[in-house]
């Protein structure tokens, strides 16, 4: 019998495996959500060792309380709440230690958190797309490659790249609006 690698598991199954104390699943969960947790810390103006403390403390609490999570599909939102509380505690602690700290004055987390949530949703929707679509969207929107560069790299006529990107954007929207839908190949 073959076991699905942790990196290929959807969030729900990953949580189930983590509860069974599967160390590979736990490493995958930390890897999958680490950038999310760091992004939340940064939204509170926490960088360097402070952000690292938020990371460590958040995943320690997640590890200890994973059994309390009632809806596995809500794991991302739950980890986000934990990171949010840990970050807020850190900011308050620093405020007590250093009342004039500019950190407290400059932290505007709400808007940043909304952007992080949106970015995570898009990232997750992108991960559900077939590889050719992921690649063409990544090259155009993230790496700023031109149609000709993309066509040369993928061996496709340059005049077809724009329409290919449009089709892949449609699939991305489908994937984003309905995470349960398996995108067309």
């Amino acid at each position, binding site marked *: 019998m073959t076991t699905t690698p942790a990196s290929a598991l959807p969030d729900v199954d990953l949580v189930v495996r983590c509860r069974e104390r599967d160390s590979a699943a736990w490493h995958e969960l930390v890897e999958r959500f680490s950038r999310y947790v760091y992004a939340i810390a940064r939204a509170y103006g926490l960088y360097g060792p402070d952000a690292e403390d938020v990371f460590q403390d958040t995943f320690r609490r997640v590890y200890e309380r994973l059994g309390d999570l009632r809806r596995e599909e809500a794991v991302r939102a739950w980890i986000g709440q934990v990171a949010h509380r840990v970050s807020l505690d850190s900011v308050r602690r620093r405020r007590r230690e250093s009342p004039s700290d500019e950190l407290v004055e400059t932290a505007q987390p709400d808007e940043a958190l909304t952007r992080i949530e949106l970015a995570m949703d898009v990232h997750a929707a992108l991960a559900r797309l077939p590889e050719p679509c992921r690649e063409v969207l990544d090259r*155009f*929107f993230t790496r*700023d490659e*031109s*149609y*000709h560069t993309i066509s040369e790299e993928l061996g496709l006529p*340059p*005049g077809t*790249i*724009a*329409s290919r*990107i*449009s*089709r*892949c*954007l*449609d699939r991305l*929207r489908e994937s984003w609006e309905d995470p349960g839908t398996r995108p067309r190949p």
Partner: protein
Amino acid sequence: VLQAGGIRQALESTGPGEQPGAGAVTALLLAQVAAVVEMAAMAEPDWSGSTGAVAQAWLLRERSLELAERNQARYAAALAALAGAGAPEAPALEPALADSIGPLLAIGETGVDVALLAAEVAAATSRTRADAIAACHLAAGATRAIRVLVESNLVVATPEDARAERAATLVRRAADAAASCPEP
């Protein structure tokens, strides 16, 4: 902007000596042309590629605006070098001119992309086809303008210089895209 007669105001808002150079103007033109493509695609909501074309046009507009900024910074550095040419502490002119070529070629590449996208939109639209065709030809013209600037900034220009050849290739590609545009 149009209703308020703002185009003249926008053009006249810069003081003497503050106007952008030809490279930045070309990039700004491309940003406007990409906006025309965006508008043309948006006017055809029944076309299945409309949303995707709008998103791509938006990205090309943003890319053009960033390149306008980058190019203007390099242009300013080249102007400073030119103004101080011969003075002992002045920055060297040749490297400053050479540095300006990278952003210029990137603008030319964006011009090809705008022309290609405009051609696709022109082929799929009816109500705004003329706008998309005009955008296609404007983008091709912008790429020709970039070639002129690249060649003039190559202090030691030789026929086999890869950057001159690159600019010529971009002109050919943009012309091909314009030629693929349907007739109005």
